[in-house]
């Protein structure tokens, strides 16, 4: 479904990511793990069109989408839930969901979002900025689903959440996959990410250094020492 080949991108002269090859099949939950500053967010931002790639290609559903305008990539069904939540703080929960939802299809998506996150349904008129951190993360994911994605990219959804919520949010990623969508999950918490993912890639200093089935990676000694605390 998503095919990345030889992707290079960055902010200045030095590329933050290089030679990235990555495949995500339909219905998979694929995780990208790696330490802070490895280039995980840069990779997602390049795929979603926020930063331009200097080389390589991104194909989605057999269509070339490299360096397309971000809203066109969303329209194609590839939607990126950014790191740090970025909900529209001054807008109500309802308006946050409406920004992403199309004019006609929103009812069905709203039902889906409220089933996943009942608390959002109770807070519709509340300003997003007044929600707790966990609720804001739910809103950020819910908003992403309103854009009717075939593939959801979740960037560090567990960042800054209490340990109990971290586990919950990652289970949400699995539930989204179970409803027939494809998920690309970027996560610093490698243990939990490998727990929910089907496959995973390891990103180090802007390059992919390892990949494979999630349970195999979780069993590998190198991964355990580097990311899982031995």
């Amino acid at each position: 479904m998503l095919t990345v080949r030889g992707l290079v991108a960055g902010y200045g002269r030095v590329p933050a990511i290089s030679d990235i090859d990555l495949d995500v099949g339909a219905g998979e939950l694929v995780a990208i793990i790696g330490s802070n500053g490895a280039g995980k967010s840069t990779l997602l931002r390049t795929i979603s069109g926020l930063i331009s790639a200097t080389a390589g290609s991104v194909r989605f559903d057999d269509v070339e989408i490299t360096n397309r305008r971000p809203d066109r990539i969303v329209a194609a069904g590839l939607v990126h839930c950014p790191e740090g939540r970025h909900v529209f703080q001054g807008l109500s929960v309802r308006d946050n969901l409406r920004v992403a939802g199309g004019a006609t299809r929103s009812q069905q998506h709203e039902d889906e979002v409220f089933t996943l996150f009942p608390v959002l349904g109770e807070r519709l008129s509340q300003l997003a900025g007044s929600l707790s951190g966990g609720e804001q993360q739910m809103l950020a994911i819910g908003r992403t689903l309103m854009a009717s994605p075939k593939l959801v990219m979740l960037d560090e959804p567990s960042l800054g959440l209490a340990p109990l919520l971290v586990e919950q949010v990652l289970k949400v990623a699995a539930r989204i996959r179970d409803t027939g969508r494809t998920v690309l999950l970027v996560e610093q918490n490698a243990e939990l990410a490998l727990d929910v993912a089907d496959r995973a890639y390891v990103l180090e200093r802007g390059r992919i250094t390892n990949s494979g089935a999630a349970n195999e990676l979780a069993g590998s000694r190198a991964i355990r020492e580097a990311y899982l605390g031995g």
Partner: protein
Amino acid sequence: MAELGQYLGNGLTLGCIYALMAIGLTLVFGYMNVVNFAHGEFYMVGAYLAFTITDILGLSFVLGLLAAIVGAIVLGVLVDIGILRKLRQYDDIAMPILATIGLSILLQNLAILIWNPVPKTAGSPVSGSSIDLLVMRTTPQNIFIVVAAAVSVLLAFLFMTRTRAGLKMRATFQDPMASWLMGVNVRRIYAMTFAFGAAMAAIGGVLISTVFQMTPTMGAVATAKSFVVVILGGLGSFPGAILGGLLLGLVESFGAGYLSADYEDAFGLLVLLVVLLLRPRGLFGAPKAVQE
């Protein structure tokens, strides 16, 4: 007592025009980071377009107003796509300043070429002698301006709060990156915002020209006054633009009436100084304060 009523009427009229001017400027300045020195030229172009339709071609006032609005929207979109969009990538506030100063000179001189520099008078669609309204003593022309301005502001407010396009604008003002990722074409929203502000200014120009003469350079003072209102009301604040505009209009009118007409412009600046001393972000200040 009679004077009080008159000053109130004049101040309110002037204040409505200032509010119309400031709405666009405050959004474009506050959220697009464009200090638009050509803002007053949209006001001037609006006045002249309406004058051409109404007084030269002899068509109705409503058609003149519509022509001004459509003309300003087209010009606004062209300016954003042709100039501002190309400068946005540099993220340098000085570039749009220079570009819009150049644009204002260009538009002023084009207006001189097309309509010549002799001041023009446009008719008001209403006429009649002074009337007393509560404590106010005012003219039908002034009442028409206040009502038309109020309707325009109300429609603008409904557009911002009740339409999908307005929702996308508000989302983009808060977080352009997240808006891109939620499928909003942020570039189009910026062009729309700029054109929206231009149209509001053009309405102001059409309305003011029903009571004052128009000249090709009338935009310069209007730009300066609009900046005063924007700072007074708070950068990026829609209600701030409206209340700031009314406040400036009333202060100028009362100051000119009771103290000295020579210092009319100074009173507004004096109020601005006082407000900035007490509330440095303006009456309704602090956009973007909620960003993480």
